[in-house]
């Protein structure tokens, strides 16, 4: 084999390529990154396996955070659940545990997520609808009644009032006789992406981040096995960002938390191993898996070289993935099963540690039991039938995948610089930088769909006029009434003196800027509601208002 021969072959390919027809849609990723017709070793230049890839379980972790990845242990199939009252969700949890599930994932209702009690006027119609309603420590106790919290890991998806819920949880666990050093689980506790995308914020950015750091500081000392923040790109992507924006903004959020912890005087290796990540799994298989690979390499570099972490566990980016809700369509909803399957495959090929697969009917209603079962079965087929788990990072070394991974990494680094040019995280939030970037990307995507530059099956092509509707879940509407009754009872029965004493103490602690967690464990025990605890703090920290820009 000689060089001229390869060159002739290349020349011929270029001629044939120029003469060949190509489809009208431009070849770009879902996010609009242009893709070449072919990738060869030339694209990789002086790519070094050792520097860019390394071995799985070793710096820079491009190939995964464990030596044997899914050959050793499959990812955790962690389906998100919660509805109605704490009693109803507790029944569901115990059912899942009996079926052999080892971890619980708690969805809270919108009032709880917004720090409002069930009896607040804005809560009407929303109590127990999209998750479980939690007003007081009694609800937390009921939620986990009969569950061994030293054995079961508990994930709680909540942000603005995350520190309140965590304090109530720890108080309930300690009072129930559990050792806080043995509690395991994950608190989402990622307020920054709320400002960028999901909009479940209450206080302004600076005090909001202070409260995130309070949880990290408290748990590092007292609940050391707890994953203190799940730094989330998922919602940024759902709001319409590109893959690069999702990656860049998420890691920038992570950097901000790390820097605030360091400023508090914490040692990076004490808290960094308990930071985890949460990414979206969207439609473009290669863009997604390149994103996860780039994420690991970027985080390892930042933790090792910028923040000088010494422990390998501080360098490892561990992540949960969820398939993209925003990619699902209400036309021909069964087709969503196929979308979810490919998205899940991207997450697994990209080395996720846990995964939630969406149900096909989520653009229509909360998942029916049938749809939720199929979503879980999708993961099981992937794990046990497709063979994608048989070797570590099977796409590593592909000219295309490595080129794309490098490009995504580089573009994310450019965003880090732009955020610095906007004077850092908080200033960039306040001037609307993130929202503008995401809003522009969302609008550009819709325009591409409307112009059919992007084909969505069943939406702008391959439509089917006579669709049969899916059977959907019918919600039990009694939860709101039940929750309101029990909250009224609690408010009547609790000691007013205890409420006043503990909320005064919470106010004092918050005003002095010390960690609020111990004081919140006392408000919890005095049966102060989540909404009341948040109200005390709102009077000190204020409420964040969004600019009117759209």
């Amino acid at each position, binding site marked *: 084999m000689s060089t001229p021969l390869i060159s002739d072959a290349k020349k011929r390919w270029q001629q044939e390529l120029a003469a060949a027809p190509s489809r009208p849609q431009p070849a770009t990723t879902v996010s609009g990154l242009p893709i070449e017709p072919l990738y060869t070793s030339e694209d990789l230049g002086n790519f070094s396996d050792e520097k860019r890839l390394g071995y799985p379980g070793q710096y820079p972790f491009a190939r995964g955070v464990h030596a044997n990845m899914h050959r050793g242990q499959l990812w955790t199939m962690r389906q998100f659940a919660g509805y109605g009252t704490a009693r109803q969700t507790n029944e569901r949890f115990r059912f899942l545990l009996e079926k052999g599930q080892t971890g619980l994932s708690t969805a809270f209702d919108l009032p709880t997520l917004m720090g409002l009690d069930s009896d607040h006027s804005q809560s009407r119609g*929303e109590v127990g609808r999209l998750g479980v309603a939690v007003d007081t420590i009694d609800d937390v106790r009921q939620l986990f009644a009969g569950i061994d919290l030293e054995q079961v890991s508990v994930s709680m998806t909540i942000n603005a009032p995350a520190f309140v819920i965590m304090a109530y949880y720890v108080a309930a666990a300690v009072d129930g006789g559990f050792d806080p050093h043995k509690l395991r689980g994950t608190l989402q506790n990622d307020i920054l992406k709320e400002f960028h995308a999901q909009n479940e914020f209450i206080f302004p950015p600076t005090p909001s981040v202070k409260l995130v750091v309070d949880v990290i500081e408290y748990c590092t000392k007292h609940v050391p096995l707890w994953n203190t923040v799940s730094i989330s790109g998922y919602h940024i992507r759902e709001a319409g960002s590109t893959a690069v924006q999702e990656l860049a903004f998420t890691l920038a959020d992570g950097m901000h938390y790390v820097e605030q912890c360091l400023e508090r005087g914490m040692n990076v290796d004490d808290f960094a191993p308990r930071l985890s990540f949460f990414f979206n799994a969207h439609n473009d298989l290669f863009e997604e898996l390149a994103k996860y690979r780039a994420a690991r390499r970027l985080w390892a570099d930042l933790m090792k070289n910028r923040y000088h972490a010494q422990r390998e566990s501080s360098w490892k980016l561990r992540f949960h993935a969820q398939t993209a809700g925003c990619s699902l369509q209400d036309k021909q909803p069964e087709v969503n099963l196929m979308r979810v399957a490919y998205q899940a495959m991207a997450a697994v090929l990209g080395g996720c540690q846990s995964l939630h697969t969406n149900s096909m009917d989520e653009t229509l209603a909360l998942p029916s039991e049938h749809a939720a079962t199929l979503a879980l079965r999708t993961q099981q087929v992937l794990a046990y039938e497709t063979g994608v788990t048989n070797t570590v990072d099977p796409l590593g070394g592909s000219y295309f995948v490595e080129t794309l991974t490098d490009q995504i990494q580089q573009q994310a680094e450019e965003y880090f610089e732009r955020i610095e040019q906007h004077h850092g995280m908080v200033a960039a939030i306040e001037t609307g930088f993130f929202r503008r970037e995401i809003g522009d990307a969302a*609008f550009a995507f*819709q325009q591409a769909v409307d112009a059919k530059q992007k084909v969505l099956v069943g939406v702008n092509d391959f439509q089917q006029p006579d669709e049969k509707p899916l059977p959907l879940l019918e919600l039990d509407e009694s939860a709101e009434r039940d929750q309101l009754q029990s909250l009224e009872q609690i408010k009547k029965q609790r000691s007013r003196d205890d409420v006043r004493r503990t909320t005064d103490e919470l106010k004092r602690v918050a005003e002095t800027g010390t960690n609020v967690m111990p004081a919140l464990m006392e408000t919890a025990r005095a049966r102060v509601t989540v909404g009341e605890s948040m109200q005390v703090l709102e009077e000190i920290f204020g409420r964040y208002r969004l600019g009117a820009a759209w």
Partner: protein
Amino acid sequence: MSLRLDSMNETDRPQRIVLAKIGLDGHDRGIKVVARGLRDHGFHVIYAGLWQAPEAVVQAVADEDADWLGISILSGAHMTLLPDLLNLLRQQGSGNVKVMVGGIIPEADIQKLQQLGVTGVFGPGTPMEDIVEFLRERR
């Protein structure tokens, strides 16, 4: 198409639409895309934002002399919140504003909402052109 003020009559006047999110859900991707799309198609768009109380929405409709009110809701609380809002519109003398709804609305609820006076309901993935055409046909 450019409009000269002196030649404007009632049919040339851009349709005015107030867009608002009611309830507690923060999903504003759809409504913001619709806001930009309608603006690009010549509509006069007033986006009231997240977490709007029914009273504030009704006030905005009156203040802005709106032809249309577009409500976005993805939390599932639409059957609790929308009937109240529609009643309030009528009570406050804005009953003739045409109402469209976007979000996750099951088929069975679409019919109920139409019976209550909602003119159009649009689910996820609706092409911008469909909304524009719908509004123009019913101006």
